[in-house]
């Protein structure tokens, strides 16, 4: 059974369309991430699931209930806000019990629930403090505690980590993942950070301009993005897009730095009706220094020459900017085997991992 089902959901303010026909579902216990650039409508979608925004048209089902016109408090959801939205004048304990008090839950039961959640999140020693006296990470925990204590059908997270510094963000990310494993609640998680989406979600919905571009597992989204937007948005450094020409049923030509054409064999033939001009999408980690040994291990690797324009060592890996025709592409190398600036190397491109796109429709071929 699916815990959340969204059918053909529309939202517009006046004439401005924010969401244009969203279809989405989350199975019970699943972790769904909504990811996209700012203004893509992901936060609006979350607010509509929570009942904080009205539905223009379409249906939202939570469990087996159509909730379009149900009040937020009756939707059996809990939400963690970007700003945490902790009640500043209440202690941590009061923050956590506020919802139960509003619902008239008996005091003993409240105390029991607070104890359980505080132990789960290790915030027992913070219960009598006010939010102003907590650090960012602690506030984050309290906000999650307030959501957890409700034991809801559906958890909603609205960019919960974006106010934390880089290190804490990684820690809290791990913690959210652990927590989800332990609690096993259906979760919808909005983020603009594709790494968060990749690491946390069991399925990702990539959104742009009010519609879902692709809704699939992180691996499928990363390996087989349905269009150039998804391909470019997911992954850092971004996928390289190289204009190419079909030269046969299974080969393409790419402009090299010296203006000559390099012919690359495709790993699989293109479907019939593919355009003559295509865009070759290659992730930086599928670009290697070509060796015969590599070719024997990965038979789909194709080679071409490229001068190295710039080298950026990051420690764990070294990024090299390579010239191809009049564009620059990025390759990711082992630091020990990294090219040096000014060198012209023989690239190996793993064509079995490459994607081909239609330059006019931007769709995957």
């Amino acid at each position, binding site marked *: 059974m699916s815990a959340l089902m969204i059918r053909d959901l529309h939202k517009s303010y006046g004439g401005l369309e924010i969401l244009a026909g969203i279809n989405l579902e989350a199975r019970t216990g699943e972790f769904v991430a909504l990811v996209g650039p700012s203004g893509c409508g992901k936060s609006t979608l979350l607010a509509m699931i929570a009942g904080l925004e009205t539905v223009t048209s379409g249906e939202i089902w939570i469990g087996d209930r159509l909730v379009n016109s149900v009040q937020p408090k009756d939707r059996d959801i809990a939400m963690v806000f970007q700003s945490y939205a902790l009640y500043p004048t209440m202690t941590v304990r009061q923050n956590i019990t506020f919802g139960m008090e509003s619902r008239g839950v008996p005091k003993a039961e409240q105390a029991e629930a607070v104890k359980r959640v505080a132990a789960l999140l290790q915030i027992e020693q913070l219960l009598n403090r006010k939010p102003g006296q907590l650090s960012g990470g602690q506030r984050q925990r309290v906000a999650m505690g*307030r959501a957890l204590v409700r034991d809801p059908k559906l958890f909603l997270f609205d960019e919960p980590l974006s106010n934390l510094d880089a290190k804490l963000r990684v820690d809290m990310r791990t913690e959210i993942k652990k927590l989800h494993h332990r609690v096993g609640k259906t979760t919808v998680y909005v983020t603009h950070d594709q790494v968060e989406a990749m690491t946390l979600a069991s399925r990702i919905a990539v959104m742009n301009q009010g519609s879902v571009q692709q809704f699939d597992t992180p691996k499928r989204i990363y390996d087989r993005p349905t269009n150039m937007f998804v391909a470019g948005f997911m992954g850092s450094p971004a996928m390289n897009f190289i204009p190419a020409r079909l030269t046969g049923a299974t080969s393409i030509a790419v402009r090299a730095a010296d203006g000559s054409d390099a012919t690359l064999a495709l790993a699989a033939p293109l479907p019939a009706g593919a355009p003559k001009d295509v865009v070759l999408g290659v992730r930086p980690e599928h670009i290697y220094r070509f060796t015969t040994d590599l070719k024997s291990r990965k038979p789909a690797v194709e080679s071409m020459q490229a001068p190295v324009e710039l080298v950026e060592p990051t420690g764990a890996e070294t990024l090299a900017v390579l010239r191809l025709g009049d564009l620059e592409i990025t390759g990711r190398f082992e630091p020990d085997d990294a090219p040096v600036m000014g060198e012209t190397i023989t690239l190996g491109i793993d064509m079995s991992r490459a994607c081909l796109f239609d330059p006019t429709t931007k769709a995957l071929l």
Partner: protein
Amino acid sequence: MSTRDLTVPVAAPATPWRERLGTMVPILVLAPSLAASFIYVFVFTLWTLYLSLSNSSLMPTYGFVGLDNYASLWANRRWNIAYTNLFLFSGFYIVGSMAIGLLLAILIDQRVRGEAVWRTIFLYPLAVSFVVTGTVWSWLYNPVDGIQAFVRGLGWTDFSFALTANRNTAIYAVIITGIWQSSGFAMALFLAGLRSVDPDLVKAAQIDGASVSRTYRKVILPTIAPIFLAVAVIQIQFAIKTFDLVAALTRGGPGVSTTFPAIYVYDLMFQRGQIGEGAAAAMMMLAALAVVLVPYSLWIAWRRRGEGRNG
């Protein structure tokens, strides 16, 4: 070579002179107003304090008489009425204008249509001077051609509305007028406070299942508690200075029923030539203000220290 260049004295004097001017400018700009406020506030306060201990009558004289002026002040029934009126008026006026101001602010905060129009209407009385307010309301309270006459003209011939004509109710006429004048001001401050509350807090309370009134009582209003204090302090000093409103509305009457300390001070000093006792009355007004403002500024300082410690 380079060390010797540094010791060449040619370029040296220009920079310090400019720097000194740079540091002097703020002091020079602030000096006149600092001097003025020092003279008008502290020097005159001390002078008044001294006069209150002197035997000044028509003109300031400096024969020391101790607390005689205070004794004769507190022996005067009219001063006692004035001081009682001050507390009665302050209490009702502050609570009333804050309650009405808060109510208006909450109503306007519900995203009403034409918010700017409502805001202007409610804030407008503040733009009218107390003298105009007092005069207009004195006409409204006037039984012969005010509200009473109007309603009677509509047919309710038994209708009675003559607050200012009765010595027991006249003070309430002053209170109502004061509230009318300043609830819009309280509303503006409260509205600004309500608008500064993180909208996510309201959403969180909504999901937590709190009703609208519970959300206001438990979440929003506690968050803007400092604004309550600020509004109260501003209103209190309005209340204690009340002079022109009463002067225009009731002239302290009927009898002495709406006399206020400020009116009494004016009367003693400039009508009756009792500057010494007038100064004593003025010091009592200062004491009333200090009772409110000293704890307030101590509290502010204490809170700031607390913030500094946490931050």
